[in-house]
């Protein structure tokens, strides 16, 4: 059981051209807003029509431009979840869920599946409420129930938590995580939040400007994002263009420092270093730096450092206790070889 997507679509100022597959797993499409990730989801759901390509779900062709196949959204059996949950405002909770079960033509059976989903999601007390009377968490539960009762073959989650406060987000994310684990089929999650993506997905596909930049398991993508944009999207904040000195030695131009590498430079044009990967006892690639700014976060400090007066600063994230012990204007900081990320454009 799997989904395979290979589509192209012209969108005026840019071209969407994505190609990926997913098995029974959670695939996250990670990208900045306007990169085409939501459009990709709409193409899978059948709301938007690609110009070219193919979409296969569990061996069924949903779309094929060459064979002129384009199933309607109703025929595709996808479960779409939007951040606003899109509950029908004129219907009660019960009517919303019943609307999701209308594919089942046998009325007895329909009643039965509606009844069991209501019990599973603990919605018994909300049945006569309207969506605007529900809390955010309740709305999400109703939306999930309505989606599942329609018997989807794949779940498509479009930025499901981005409208929520962080404390609520965490709780609702847990509910969704439980649900997609028990769902057992393909799930595609669209998000711009690297933390959420890391917690929820198995596989990550980084999209930038309508193109797939990097695809792989989440550990692979975070360890080796491959491109500069993918590094930015996975939260790498220190990135500098480089000049090659030798196969395993480069100058990081922005920071004005020479770095020794573990691997050969290859085609790389940039190096990246995650802020928390810098360390004081690296024993290699160490530099005497001037502290130029100290930014206080809730549980850590971000120390902005310069290795040379006329260079640009880079950030080092350090926990509060450690910093309070060191706290000085000059420190020696190291770029561990194993943590340096080589990146292409």
């Amino acid at each position, binding site marked *: 059981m799997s989904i395979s997507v290979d589509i192209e679509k012209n969108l005026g100022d840019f071209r969407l051209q994505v190609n990926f597959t997913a098995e029974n797993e959670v695939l996250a499409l990670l990208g900045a807003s306007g990169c085409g990730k939501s459009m990709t989801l709409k193409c899978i759901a059948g709301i938007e029509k690609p110009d070219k390509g193919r979409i296969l779900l569990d061996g069924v062709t949903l779309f094929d431009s060459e064979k002129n196949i384009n199933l309607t959204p109703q025929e595709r059996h996808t479960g779409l979840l939007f951040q606003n949950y899109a509950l029908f405002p004129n219907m009660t909770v019960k009517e919303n869920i019943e609307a999701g079960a209308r594919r089942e033509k046998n009325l007895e059976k329909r009643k039965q599946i509606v009844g069991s989903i209501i019990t599973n999601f603990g919605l018994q007390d909300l049945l006569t409420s309207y969506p605007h009377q529900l809390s955010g968490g309740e709305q999400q539960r109703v939306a999930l129930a309505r*989606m599942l009762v329609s018997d989807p073959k794949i779940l498509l989650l479009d930025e499901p938590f981005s409208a929520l406060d962080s404390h609520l987000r965490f709780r609702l994310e847990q509910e969704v995580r439980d649900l997609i684990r028990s769902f057992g089929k393909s799930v595609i999650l669209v998000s711009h939040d690297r933390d959420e993506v890391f917690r929820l997905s198995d596989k990550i596909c980084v999209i930038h400007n309508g193109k797939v930049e990097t695809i792989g398991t989440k550990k692979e993508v975070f360890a080796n994002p491959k491109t500069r944009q993918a590094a930015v999207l996975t939260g790498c904040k220190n990135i500098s263009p480089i000049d090659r000195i030798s196969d395993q030695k480069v100058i990081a131009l922005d920071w004005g420092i020479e770095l020794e590498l573990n691997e050969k430079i290859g085609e790389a044009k940039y190096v990246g270093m995650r802020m928390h990967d810098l360390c004081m006892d690296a024993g290699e690639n160490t530099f005497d730096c001037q502290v130029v700014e100290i930014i206080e976060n809730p549980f850590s400090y971000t120390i902005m450092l310069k290795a040379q007066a006329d260079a640009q600063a880079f950030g080092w994230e350090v926990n509060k206790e450690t910093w309070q012990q060191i706290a000085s204007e000059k420190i020696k900081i190291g770029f561990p070889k194993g943590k340096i990320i080589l990146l292409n454009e």
Partner: protein
Amino acid sequence: MDLFPLWNSIRIALISTVAVFFIGIWSAYHISKASKEIKGIMDVLLTLPLVLPPTVVGYLLLRILGPQRIVGEWFLTNFDFKLTMTWWSAVFATVVVIFPLMYRTARGAFESFDETLAYSAQSIGLSDTFVFWKIRMPYCRPGIIAGTILAFARALGEYGATSMIAGFTPGNTATIATHVYQLWRTNNDELAFQWVLVNMLISFVVLFALNLIESQYKSKNNVKGGV
């Protein structure tokens, strides 16, 4: 007091409003979904009657529906049916004049519709017909009702185009609006004033109903659940 103008005005306004209700919603729905270019052109064309002087609308209608003009002549020769200077002629004039009110309010309502509702509905298997009648229309209902009432109110007050295409025949084409003008012209000041009061009363009631619906809709939608 001969009540014919009141009855005639209401009859014309009701028929026109029913017609415009369907044509207006139909056009509004399709144009709200059309491409930018088509939307731009159609929007101007369909809103034009709102800004044109009613006499210009009346003139244009006469050029089309008059007994010696293309459509008017065809109806006259084929069906022996006169399109001008009858009470139903006023319906044509009124429909054209009130159409933009219905069209624009309905289009505004359709455009404010949250499309993710339709997408979700389609993906859970609900037919496009179901989506239109059970989700889109209820969502847009307040806007559509407001447009209908506004159109009806304007229909009752239509004078310029009506007087050109239907003229003033007491007991046949006379409406409140044309009747008031006729009474004033013939120095029947007292009766004219009575009709003015009748007209104001009707308009007051209609607009009051409109505000009531709007405030009800607002209070219903302000009840947002806390998180």
